């Protein structure tokens, strides 16, 4: 679960990491009011998208009028398709040096990795590519947590003069990383200003698997992705016209690949996970068929924990509402029961992923 900048900054600040004073506003007036109290401010669009600055979603404002004007403009924007509904109005801190600190999981070493650079800011990925020696990396043993010497050594590599303040930020950031079950925490830039060190931006992603023990709550968007997630399924909308329902992410990807292999285009990725019952299959069909571009649907189930008869029951109950042809492949647990249930409904059957993909692409084309 990705957090908005302002939510991440609240947590960082609570952990003792210095962030500029700031206010969340939803109107130009509020932005002006805040600027009256703070003086020079930065107005920052709160959207879950990178490149806000380059898109014009961040604006320095020297006085309340300018702040209000900038807020007005940014509140009217969409960044990468996401409408801007909230702004963070923050006291302006002029950065003298922009550093980078990020902590994520190194899958290969199976432990947290801290990355730090004295050359932070918007071009950090370029720095990583062009001047890899400018990025210092340090693994942390998850059983001991960060050792003081590690924070200190990283801090020395960034700015020896301010090492102790930087080491403090790194230590606290690591604490946030573990206490909040993060898969990512990032400060870019960590800025040295005339008022000291400040985290001018903040990124934080919480492990979805750990949400049961974190009280972070996602803002609801009403999207199909969210609806699927609530029902324990995984849905991603795509550009094509063949709806897909598969159990297992790997098999789902293989199904998409096979559709592409036969010249078709998937309308979505949908993993109903292991053990889906008839109700879940119905929900999945409802989500997938809500797409108006749909030409055909493929259902690809290899039942292990999932029972084929449950899947078939869900499909049969939804048939009256589905207006496009369905190709279904059912293998595994209670396969024959499932096939019998489907037999009388004129649904195209297949016995492998490849066959199902080939057939659904044909059906989709025929329909055009």
């Amino acid at each position: 679960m990705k957090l908005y900048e302002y939510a991440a900054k609240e947590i960082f600040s609570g952990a003792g990491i210095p962030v500029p004073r700031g206010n969340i506003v939803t109107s130009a007036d509020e932005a002006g009011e805040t600027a009256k109290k703070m003086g020079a401010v930065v107005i920052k669009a709160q959207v879950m998208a990178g490149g806000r600055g380059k898109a014009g979603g961040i604006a320095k404002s020297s006085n309340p009028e300018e702040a209000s004007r900038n807020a007005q403009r940014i509140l009217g924007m969409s960044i990468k398709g996401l409408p801007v509904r909230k702004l963070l109005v923050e006291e302006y801190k002029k950065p003298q040096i922009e550093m980078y600190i990020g902590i994520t999981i190194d899958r290969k070493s199976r432990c947290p990795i801290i990355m730090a650079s004295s050359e932070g800011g918007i071009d950090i990925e370029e720095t990583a590519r062009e001047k890899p020696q400018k990025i210092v990396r340090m693994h942390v043993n998850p059983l001991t947590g960060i050792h003081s010497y590690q924070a200190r050594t990283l801090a020395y590599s960034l700015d020896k003069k301010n090492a102790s303040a930087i080491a403090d930020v790194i230590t606290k950031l690591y604490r946030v990383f573990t206490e909040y079950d993060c898969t990512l925490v990032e400060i870019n830039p960590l800025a040295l200003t005339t008022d000291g060190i400040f985290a001018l931006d903040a990124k934080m992603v919480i492990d979805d698997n750990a949400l049961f023990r974190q009280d972070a709550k996602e803002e609801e968007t009403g999207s199909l992705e969210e609806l699927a997630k609530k029902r324990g399924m995984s849905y991603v909308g795509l550009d094509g016209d063949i709806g897909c329902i598969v159990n297992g992410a790997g098999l789902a990807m293989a199904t998409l690949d096979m559709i592409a292999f036969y010249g078709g285009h998937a309308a979505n990725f949908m993993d109903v996970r292991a053990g889906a019952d008839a109700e879940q299959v119905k929900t999945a069909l409802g989500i997938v068929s809500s797409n108006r571009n749909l030409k055909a649907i493929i259902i690809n189930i290899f039942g292990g924990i999932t029972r084929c008869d449950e899947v078939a029951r869900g499909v049969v109950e939804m048939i009256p509402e589905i207006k496009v042809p369905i190709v279904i492949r059912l293998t595994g647990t209670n396969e024959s029961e499932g096939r019998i249930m489907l037999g009388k409904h004129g649904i195209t059957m297949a016995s492998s992923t490849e066959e199902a993909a080939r057939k659904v692409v044909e059906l989709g084309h025929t329909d055009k």
Partner: protein
Amino acid sequence: MGILINKDTRLLVQGITGSVGSFQAKQMKDFGTGIVAGVTPGKGGSEVHGIPVFDSVKEAVDEADPNASVIFVPPQFAADAIFEAADSGMELIVCITEGIPVHDMMRVCAYLKPQSRLLGANCPGITAPGESKIGIMPNSIHLPGNIGLVSRSGTLTYEIVDLLSKNGLGQSTSVGIGGDPVTGMSFADILELFEEDPKTHAVVLVGEIGGTAEEDSIEFIRGMSKPVISYIVGVSAPPGKTMGHAGAIVSAGSGSALEKIAALENAGVTVAKSPADIVKRLNYFLR
């Protein structure tokens, strides 16, 4: 003899009284797996499908002497179950549970000693046809033979195993290492065992987008004497949600399927284009 498991494997089932644990214990027993005990705290003294149930792994060890364990407990408690299995000397721990927090898994992996090998979490387990099965792969799909299979996926593993069997290509062992960001044994760990296993003549490696697990195995594959056919899914998958800058900085690659395929092919590893293509290429190597 399969890798990691065989006829002599004495299996413990942690979480045996749950609905999935109980169902899968029955499936494994039907397959021929030597299940010697189950554990569910508070249910000690009962039986599931004739298998004695204990309150703790230690008791199960004292009474039934298992050497491998499979874990079906809910994600909140799964890491603790792995710690318990490891502390009790289990040589192989197979964790089926999906949804374990990644910080728990990092702690588990940092804790495990070399004498305890972990498969998963979030994996379908391991099957040595005709000998033993630990996990949840459907019983019917396997055929004894000489192909070693290793995969990060669940149902896709069944699909490939099923395809191989239907084409007469039996398996020495099929292994799912799990799809989570942090797992126990890696591709390379399994490949090493296949390379040493006299019964395995060729290996199928099924990878997918995300991370660099496939790329990390390349170095080992290059030194192998046995043919390895890889298959990577996710070519047409939507690009993953980006993980800030850090995700891109931490690994050289972006984790896309095309990048993986390019890396494997550049290193001279065979990459199949579809499941059917795996069969074709295996037949070429094994003819």
